[in-house]
């Protein structure tokens, strides 16, 4: 079979492109090297849907961010059952002499079309952010920024794309891409797939994939960001996402609301040569705590319940989204650093346009399933609703994860929707992401996975082959 498009990489970029292309009468294949989608950069980031500020007005990422933000707010959040919270953002200054910097960010944002920007004073802040420290003098208020669960964003897009006919192959690392006169041959996971077009959305590995295909035109330099999550008890420590003034390479250390309730502090921004270097460090923790406490001195190290590091797949300052003329039919979606999560819906529309320019017909499907029902999460519904759910299905009353209130039914649902690993269950349901870190629920989840997937216990893994949890069973 010759497909129309093969997309390499099921992160937020590849997922959004797959879903966008699934509107049309096309045969699309999405290849992912990991055991599940969203296990690359898209799982470890701040989850902020940026408004579009803090980007140069002439940049690609600037306008894609503004447009991605709009598409998510106005269409995707409702269509895909996403829990998007438009909490707004504050960029604070510690010195009134820096007010011109805020004016500049405001003017640049407005040039990109960001709406509702407003410089606010300390009295405004005192009324709305009582925990800000005394050093904070004023801020730029950015109302259209918000938060989302990044992996659930990816899962929703992939699920809906698959519902609309896209084929997903996981555990399929692309090892060769050959341009033949009639199209591409893509080798992945021991199979050969054929297509007319290839979209390379391979995140940190996009440079290697592009080179494989014959276009060694850029290099990805990972920039590490460490993030530290706080206990849900601190949920209301901040009401907005709080930023300091940005530096040259990053937006600075932030206080981030997350859509699941736990506030987060971070991220750092340091280049690393190693694309697998996801280690957090003592130095990173110290830097994050110092940065966050300058804005909010009551933040305490003992509030931290989890941490992770993510790598921004940077290549220069801007995104690289282009057709490679040297390899006709190859579209690169690379260098998707921040705000890639936000921009993805707009990137997808742009990529569809690039493919069309190169001769891919975009004929809308008669029946495109635009809507995806939101999965049930007990932690998001009031108790009365929980009672109703339990009456319909008793196993919503069978609580697996006590810290985050996740039932056996939700875990089973996650597995039926594609979770194959403990992390996949965690990202979809939040089971194991609370304060006990899976101490209480891990064995139960392992058993549910065995039941649903028919696996021996030694085959249940954290995030795919090589990360099995149990080495042996006692005879």
């Amino acid at each position: 079979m010759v497909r129309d498009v093969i997309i390499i990489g099921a992160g937020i970029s590849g997922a959004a492109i797959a879903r966008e292309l699934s509107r049309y009468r096309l045969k699309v294949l999405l290849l992912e090297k990991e055991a599940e989608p969203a296990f690359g950069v898209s799982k470890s980031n701040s989850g902020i849907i940026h408004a579009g500020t803090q980007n140069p007005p002439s940049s690609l990422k600037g306008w894609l961010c503004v447009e991605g933000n709009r598409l998510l707010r106005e269409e995707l959040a409702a269509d895909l059952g996403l829990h998007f919270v438009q909490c707004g953002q504050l960029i604070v200054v510690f010195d009134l002499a820096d007010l011109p910097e805020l004016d500049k960010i405001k003017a640049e944002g407005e040039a990109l079309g960001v709406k509702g920007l407003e410089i606010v004073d300390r009295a405004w802040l005192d009324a709305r952010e009582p925990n800000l420290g005394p050093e904070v003098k004023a801020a730029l208020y950015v109302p259209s920024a918000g938060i989302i669960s990044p992996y659930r964003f990816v899962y929703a897009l992939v699920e809906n794309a698959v519902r609309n006919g896209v084929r997903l192959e996981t555990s399929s690392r692309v090892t060769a891409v050959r341009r033949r006169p009639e199209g591409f041959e893509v080798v992945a996971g021991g199979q050969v797939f054929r297509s007319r077009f290839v979209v390379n959305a391979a995140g940190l590995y996009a440079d290697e994939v592009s080179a494989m295909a014959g276009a060694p035109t850029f290099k990805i330099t990972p920039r590490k960001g460490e993030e530290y999550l706080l206990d849900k008890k601190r949920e209301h420590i901040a009401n907005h996402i709080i930023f300091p003034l940005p530096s040259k390479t990053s937006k600075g250390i932030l206080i981030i609301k997350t859509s699941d309730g736990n506030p987060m502090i971070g991220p750092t921004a340091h280049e690393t040569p190693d694309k697998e270097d996801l280690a957090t460090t003592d130095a990173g923790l110290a830097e994050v705590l110092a940065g966050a406490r300058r804005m909010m001195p009551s933040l305490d190290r003992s509030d931290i319940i989890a941490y992770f590091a993510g790598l921004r797949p940077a290549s220069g300052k801007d995104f690289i989204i282009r057709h490679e003329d040297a390899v006709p039919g190859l579209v690169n979606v690379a260098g998707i650093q921040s705000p890639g999560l936000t921009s993805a819906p707009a990137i997808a529309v742009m990529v569809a346009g690039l493919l069309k320019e190169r001769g891919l017909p975009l004929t809308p499907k008669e029946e495109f399933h635009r809507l995806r029902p939101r999965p049930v999460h007990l932690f998001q519904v009031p108790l009365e609703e929980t009672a109703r759910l339990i009456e319909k299905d008793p196993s919503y009353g069978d609580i697996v994860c006590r810290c985050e209130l996740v039932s056996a039914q939700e875990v089973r649902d996650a597995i039926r929707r594609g979770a194959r690993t403990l992390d996949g269950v965690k990202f979809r349901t939040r089971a194991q992401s609370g304060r006990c870190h899976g101490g209480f629920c891990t064995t139960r989840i392992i058993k549910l996975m065995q039941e649903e997937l028919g696996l021996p216990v030694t085959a249940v893994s954290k995030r795919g082959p090589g990360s099995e949890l149990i080495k042996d069973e006692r005879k």
Partner: protein
Amino acid sequence: MKERQLVVVGGGPAGMAAALAAREAGVADVLLLERDQHLGGILNQCIHPGFGLHHFKEELTGPEYADRFAARVLADPGIEVRLKSFAVKLTPDRRISFLRPGALEEVQAGAVVLATGCRERTREMIPIPGTRPAGVYPAGLAQKMVNMEGWIPGREAVIVGSGDIGLIMARRMALEGVLVKAVIEIQKSSRGLVRNVVQCLEDFGIPLYFQHRISMVRGRDRVESVDVVRVDDEFRDIPGSDFSLSCDTVLVSVGLIPENELLEMAGALIDRKTNTPVAPDVNLTSLPGIFACGNACKVYDLADWVTRDSQLAGRMAARYLGVADL
């Protein structure tokens, strides 16, 4: 809404002792809620001996100790035991909501005893830097895997923390044929019982490193090694003292934290450092008619003392209900 005289949350040694003592003191109607499918709490996974020396004057395993109380609880017609029942909400006027397969129920309690036990402090709370591969487990989780499920989590282990759970798990893993390479302790001495240091480590030739810490966990998918470094009296790393231990498993045993989220939800005062109720005396909370006992009240080192104090909590609840003098 149903009214119940006394509701006990938690069916471990603390909850069982409180329920039984309340009954002896004259409480007619006790509802005992337990999340798990059996009574006994954490004792069910503590299959080693060392329980009951004080209370029963004989040496029992954890499950044996628990079973003695469970048998009495189940035989008592005045105690209704609800298993797989998970309390999700408590109000200051003692309304409790709980989930169980098939229903969400709400009851009004005359008095409440919270005996919800502890959770383990995790790697994240220290925090131990490095990657986050499979193979890093809280020691209590590993104990549950090995003792309750027969699952052996790894083949070469390093244990962080020399409290009793860490020591007991070092021995347990060694008995299962796991190569236990070291126990790493940041303090100058062990928090565990002396008998455990001797019986669990020395008898098995497992090295114990005082004043050391893990400075890095390595491995992408599964733990491959840890970096260990010596620290000075101020817990600062001593340069040049670091070494690496290859292993596929790290068990983290760095203390317990009382589980008092329900109490906090009800608005009681909680000490932020220890997560224990702020109150003038053991078993009390800042809310009238709501008591906390066992490891939820403070972290005990012996189940025998949990039983003793929790019996007192049962009697205190009875007195609050006006059915007994203390």
